[in-house]
């Protein structure tokens, strides 16, 4: 075990993955610089420039080339610097990477990982702050995972590398260095498609993922202190979604607050709410609450806090469900 933060855990996961010679890491400044967030620090020195590949500023080229490498027997891990820079590469992701299995009836697959730092919280404004996870979740053929702890970061990354399908691996920027915990030194995986029941309780279920787990954790403390028995679910895997864990919890608590940092309209939270009403409508004691960002572009630093769902927003939403 080594105590580490999320950035270090992803680094450790990358180092473990690179032990397999079919794995390469490719992206802008991932080598010499170790990436914008220094997540790939030291990997160039350890694995060499053929395995840790610095590319030009060409996201379409990066994703497309990684896809071609995947077709031809490699297991590329792509790093895109910020979520806002995936858009020039989005054509390759949505038109090719996500669809090859279906359109070729499994004759071709894309066993690759696309790592994307995402989310607000460092005051870096648009392109560097967005939460566009739902665009990927809405794209059939892609799996989408979002760790919120160092343990899950390494375990989900290794699961993503093993996975025969393309996995979009979202790294919450604000959480990179926010928490530390013991992470096993040996390889392990956290299964994709399994949510984590973080806390058990009876009155209300708080459901979220990524950076919002920090706010949810704080809301859990406050609500518990005020006598509410709170269940907490870290979704971890948006696609495939562990509907079972969510539904089981709602059958017990009858109340839910779904939290996402992304804009409200058609966000991933809406999918969770839809699943709940399809499978657990008659267990509900109150309408499901959504706590979300606003339907706008992430603002500059000072207003960023206002944009982001807060602990207080979550606590109030939980109380609203408890009124019924």
């Amino acid at each position: 075990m080594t105590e580490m933060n999320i950035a270090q855990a992803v680094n450790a996961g990358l180092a473990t993955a690179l032990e397999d010679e079919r794995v390469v890491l490719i992206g802008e400044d991932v080598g010499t610089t170790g990436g914008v967030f220094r997540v790939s620090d030291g990997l160039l020195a350890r694995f060499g420039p053929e395995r840790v590949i610095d590319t030009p500023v060409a996201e379409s080229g990066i994703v497309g080339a990684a896809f071609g490498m995947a077709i031809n027997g490699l297991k590329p891990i792509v790093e895109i610097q910020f979520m806002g820079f995936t858009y020039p590469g989005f054509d390759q992701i949505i038109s090719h990477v996500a669809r090859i299995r279906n359109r070729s009836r499994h004759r071709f697959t894309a066993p690759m990982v696309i790592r994307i730092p995402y989310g607000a919280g460092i005051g870096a404004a648009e392109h560097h702050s967005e939460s566009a996870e739902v665009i990927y979740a809405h794209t059939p053929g892609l799996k989408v995972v979002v760790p919120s702890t160092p343990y899950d970061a390494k375990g989900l990354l290794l699961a993503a590398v093993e996975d025969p399908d393309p996995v979009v691996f979202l790294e919450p920027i604000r959480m990179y260095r926010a928490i530390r915990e013991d992470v096993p030194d040996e390889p392990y995986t956290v299964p994709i498609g399994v949510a984590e029941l973080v806390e058990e309780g009876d009155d209300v279920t708080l459901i979220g993922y990524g950076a919002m787990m920090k706010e949810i954790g704080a809301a859990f403390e406050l609500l518990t202190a005020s006598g509410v028995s709170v269940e907490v679910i870290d979704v971890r895997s948006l696609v495939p979604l562990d509907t079972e864990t969510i539904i089981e919890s709602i059958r017990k608590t009858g109340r839910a607050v779904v939290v996402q940092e992304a804009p409200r309209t058609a966000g991933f939270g809406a999918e969770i709410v839809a699943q709940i009403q399809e499978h657990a409508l008659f267990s509900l004691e109150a309408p499901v609450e959504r706590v979300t960002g606003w339907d706008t572009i992430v603002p500059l630093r000072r207003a960023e806090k206002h944009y982001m769902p807060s602990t207080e927003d979550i606590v109030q939403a939980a109380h609203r469900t408890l009124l019924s």
Partner: protein
Amino acid sequence: MIRSLDNDTLLGLWERMARIRAFETRVGEIAAAKEVAGYLHTYSGQEAVACGVIPLLRDDDWFTSTYRNHGHAIARDIPLDEIAGEIYGKVTGVCGGKGGSMHVADQSRGMIGGMGIVAGGLPIATGAALASKYLGRDSVAVAFFGDGAVHQGAWHEALEFASLFQCPVVFVCENNLYAETTAVDYHLLAGSVSAMTGPYQIPSVQIDGMDVFAVRAATAAAFERARTGNGPSLIEAMTYRYGGQYEGDTQTYKPPTEVAYWRGQDPLLRFRSDTATRLGMATLDAIEQSVQVEVDAAFTAAEAAPWPDISEVTTDVYTPIA
């Protein structure tokens, strides 16, 4: 070139270059003091490019910029208060504090804006130019971009459009030898950006981007071509950014000898040595002092200016409902 310019024009160029240098030096300081969050990309070292090109724009011309756009905004005479205000995210900003440092935009001055996405501006400037042609106007559009932009599909698509439709657009590459931490020696296979326009049949020149007069001469020729219906061109200005990719970048990737060489080519020093006998050192010094006063005032005003109301977080996404 210099001889054909009158003293007022020369002093105007000097004033803008000095203003940019003083402004960006201050931006570096506020970044170091962590007064403004987020990424701040400074323009020091590249002043001759903005000041060689932009003063030749007419009121009805357009241009796009990048996240490294303060220098372009200053060269276009956008008031310093409005640029500093925008960087701080205050109501006094040119976009009311919505766009921030990377997205300074001013429609009234033809500045379509800084674009945070590398190469994002090239197709847009091309389209603005195509519209001018369609509307029968002789205005031009300029797209500023860095050496790193040539790797984006958008760069190639813009050049192809511009050539195919003979758009009155001028592509201005500020080749500062680095795209983030990656040197052109590594990433620029053609050896130069100007060498890449041949297949698109776009005339190009590589020029000394530390010499404002060389930039101005190349721009005048390109504008003339565009305004007279002879299509696009590309200027590759060889220059150097003194700061990092963003403020806070440790710049370990820059060899000290290289830094020393380019500091020796400083566009302000070069301007001084080219014009001192004619304009007099004292005049140039006085302008430097006066722009410093302007910069100080602009930042003091920006610091003191009010923040946009927090309710504005959700405004300006769609047409306001009357």
